[in-house]
């Protein structure tokens, strides 16, 4: 999570949050909005699953590889993944915005396929040295027979996000995924486990009570400002 202190600006790729005095201004490529937030109220940016901007229509995430990948034997890959950010004032969610370009696609046919959040991804060879803004996801790949794969798809609804401190910012991770190559697509399921040790699991934004407890317990920022 990233606190937005009075008199500061936070940029995450295409998302900007500026705070001066009581004014809080938020913008992303799809909307912009201003709020009046008293200076003694903490403002926090929390990564959430990319399902809300501009409207919730997708349940799955489809990651399109920059170039098709040949899978011949079981392996593990790390891929760049998008996320959205929820802006909280105290324990209230003010708005959810997207630091990344938002697109959707149909997996299957328009008659009865799946509406998916779409993202053009790339494989990350060195996840520990990764300096980008995107989240990272690890996928263990099972291969029954060699195939050329153009994308990865998985159900986002039960996936957890995790964070780790990384230099001056934060790094976001997805749950470890377990994938199987089938008909040119890597179809993955959620293992509900973190991809690495020592990561902090982010809460799902479901209600103010749970959020307040989480914020006070994890960051300490809100307590200091109060």
């Amino acid at each position, binding site marked *: 999570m990233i606190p937005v202190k009075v008199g500061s600006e936070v940029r995450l790729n295409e998302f900007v949050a500026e705070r001066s005095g009581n004014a809080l201004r938020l913008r992303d490529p799809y909307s912009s909005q201003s709020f009046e937030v008293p200076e003694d109220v903490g403002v926090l940016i929390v990564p959430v699953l990319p399902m809300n901007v*501009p*409207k919730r*229509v997708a349940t799955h995430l489809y990651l399109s590889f920059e170039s098709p990948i040949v899978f011949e034997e079981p392996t593990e890959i790390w891929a760049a993944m998008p996320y959205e950010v929820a802006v909280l004032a105290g324990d209230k969610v003010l708005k959810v915005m997207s630091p990344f*370009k938002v*697109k*959707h696609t*149909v997996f299957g046919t*328009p008659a009865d396929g799946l509406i998916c959040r779409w993202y053009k991804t790339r494989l990350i060879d060195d996840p520990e040295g990764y300096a980008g803004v995107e989240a990272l996801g690890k996928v263990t790949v099972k291969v029954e027979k060699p195939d050329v794969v153009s994308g990865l798809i998985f159900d986002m609804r039960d996936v957890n996000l995790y964070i780790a401190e990384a230099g001056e910012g934060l790094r976001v991770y997805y749950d470890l995924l377990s994938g199987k190559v089938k008909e040119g697509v890597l179809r993955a399921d959620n293992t509900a486990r973190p991809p690495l040790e020592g990561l902090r699991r982010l809460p799902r934004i479901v209600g103010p009570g749970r959020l307040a407890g989480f914020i006070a317990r994890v960051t300490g920022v809100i307590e200091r400002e109060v």
Partner: protein
Amino acid sequence: MVDLQFSEFLSMLGGNLLTYLMVGVSIAVVVAIALFIRYWMRRVAKPRIPLHVYTALEKLVVYGIIILGVLAALAPLGIELTGLLIAGGILGIVIGFASQTVVSNFLSGIFLYIEAPFKVGDAVQIMDYGGRIEDISIMSTKIRTWDGILVRLPNDKLFNSDITNYSRSVARRFRFKIGISYDSDIEKARQALLKLMEEHPMVLVNPGPQVLVVEYGDSAIILEVRGWAPTQVWFDTYMSILRMAKSALDRPGVKIPFPQLDLHIKEIPKGQGSPV
């Protein structure tokens, strides 16, 4: 003599009492069977069948069993069933002729349930009415039109109509035509419109957007813009692209012309023909 008449009376009474008792028990058994069948239907059939169909079916079955059972149970009392059945048949024919429409609506309701061309909440176009299905009952279907008006459609009319269901697919295509002037660069216009759709979060990547030259019209080159959007946001996406198309074309200098007519004035030399 008196003793004989009294004992005969007692015997007759005892016999009738037994008959009445048997009839009473038979009716009670019939009612118990009907109630058991109703209980079984509520447990097994009710969760699986739309409520409006189940309610009619339950009444038909339960009352049918009770009526037939009671009539059969009354036979020992000497009540002529044949006459009742004939009278019932004639009455049924009379009622049938008088209520053809009602029966037709009822049967159409059953067939609509079996075929299920729509469900409550679907966006549909039926005859001249476009809107959302608000209620489906055994005799009629109610639509809330896009203008907020509630329309009741008899099921027999509905069953025989063309029904367009816009909610049955996860994605729908939008398309519209736009004319550009003959001195505009077609490729610049195409790229500007494609970029507009590529940047819109709800225009799908697959199936992808298209911009096609479909006609060389009298006043303009006609382009057809096509894109797909999730059904739940189809209308908003379509309207958004339609609204932004003009400014997308303005930026690279592509013009949308008014209808035009080129007038050529020709001078006819004297002596070669008379003007009109």
